[in-house]
């Protein structure tokens, strides 16, 4: 008969295994970058570091990027935290609810006197991420089926990415300078009237030119009217 300590240990092993597999599925690029043994070590460490507040294993990895930023063994791999952040955001966008395109008929019915209070929304699960490293290239090379021998120059400069779900595919799009600032404003819930009073015109690209394109490509998916504020 197995001693009690080993029986309890069986549960510990099972939990470690499940969490490790879950992290591997959510963070496959990290898995390829650091290897199986290191992944298991990190899974054990994060068990000590963080707790899971959701019944879903798919939600478990949310704290992993923050954990990586403090995990001493990977401090020399400065880009790894940003890669993990990108992987988590990709996972969230991949599992986000489906949404129809922006309802233009409903938008046309908004009276002009309320246009100032329009708040446009990005797709559910969409997120913005900026990094000092070319994390999109690292991600691309490590997610293609055929291993690549391309060398990535970590000093080639940073990147800004919109991660979002487009129908049944998940995309990493690289907005322009104007686009990045405008996307940040939309993500923060800045109402349309306030956006019009700000200067988003850079390199000859105006907000008026970007908005219809963004509606068509799906970057703007929904709108609400901001609650009126008593004067």
């Amino acid at each position, binding site marked *: 008969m197995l001693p009690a300590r080993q029986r309890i240990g*069986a549960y510990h092993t099972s939990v470690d295994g499940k969490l490790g597999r879950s992290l591997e599925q959510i963070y496959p690029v990290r898995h390829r970058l650091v290897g199986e043994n290191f992944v298991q070590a990190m899974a054990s460490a994060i068990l000590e570091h963080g707790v899971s507040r959701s019944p879903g294993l798919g939600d478990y990895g949310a704290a992993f990027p923050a954990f990586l930023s403090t995990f001493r063994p990977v401090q020399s791999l400065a880009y790894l935290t940003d890669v993990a952040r990108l992987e988590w955001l990709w996972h969230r966008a991949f599992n986000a609810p489906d949404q129809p395109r922006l309802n233009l008929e409903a938008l046309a019915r908004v009276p002009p006197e309320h246009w100032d209070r329009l708040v446009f929304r990005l797709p559910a699960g969409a997120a913005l991420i900026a990094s000092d490293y070319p994390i999109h290239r690292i991600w691309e090379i490590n997610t293609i089926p055929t291993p690549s021998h391309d060398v990535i120059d970590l000093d080639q400069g940073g990147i800004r990415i919109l991660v979002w779900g487009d129908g049944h595919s998940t995309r990493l799009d690289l907005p322009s300078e104007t686009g990045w600032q405008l996307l940040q404003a939309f993500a923060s819930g800045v109402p349309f009237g306030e956006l019009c009073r700000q200067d988003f015109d850079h390199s000859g690209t105006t907000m008026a030119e970007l908005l219809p394109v963004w509606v068509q490509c799906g970057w703007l998916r929904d709108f609400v009217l901001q609650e009126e504020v008593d004067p």
Partner: protein
Amino acid sequence: MIRGAGVVADSNIQGVGLGLRPPHYADILSSWPAIPWFEALSDNYLGGGLPLHHLTRIRERYPITLHGVGLSFGSVDPLNQAYLKRLNALVDRVEPSFVSDHLAWVSQGGRYFHELAPLPYTEEALEHVAERIQRVQDVLGRQILIENLSPYVRFAGSDYLEWEFLSELARRADCFLLLDVNNVFVNAFNHDFDPLAYLDALPAERVKELHLAGHEEEGSFLFDIHGRAVQDGVWALYRQALQRFEQVPALIEWDTDIPALEVLMTEAAKAEALRSGRPVP
């Protein structure tokens, strides 16, 4: 019936189904294999996106059951209302034949440890779990199935044997049972009791589904890994279960180191042959 679907599948399940796993989506959606039904892990589809899209497409052709691990019936934490709401929305969307979870607790103090932990089989636990099951059934608008574990530990001070606890739970909560035959086999081996006594004690009319899975043997102990083919001892116990629970559908459940779809279909074919009395392939 699925609302708005072009092709709809009857929601009743019969025969031997397979656990639906992401590595098999492409094969299923391209070849539409001759499997009578699939069991989806609820927790994989509570968000949306491509996984839910695949499930919806599969549901158009096959009956589906939903099997979860997050309701934590044995916990003293309040029922997770957010999780229950998402589960209810999923049930509305895919209209499963059955919804099931486990006689277990997976959370304490709001912390989830993602392991199905056993509970003591006391009168207090029985009342507690029965009440929680009833509340979940009220929300979902249906009776659910509760699955037995293969606990590695037992608790001193239990008032019931496990099969007594399950039987009484099904009666008090007016719920059904999902009998994992592998778990009964592993449990009986590890705790030295007769698995047939377990089968004989359960109310046959409450058992609505069987699970078949593989375990791992390490010396004098069996570990429930659900990650290999069904072993001979489990097949033998399954034969006994078929006599006790006639025509109850069964599922090949494989959770780790998932093989090709053909391997699972071979297991299902064997189970179906045993079920129907035909020669085993």
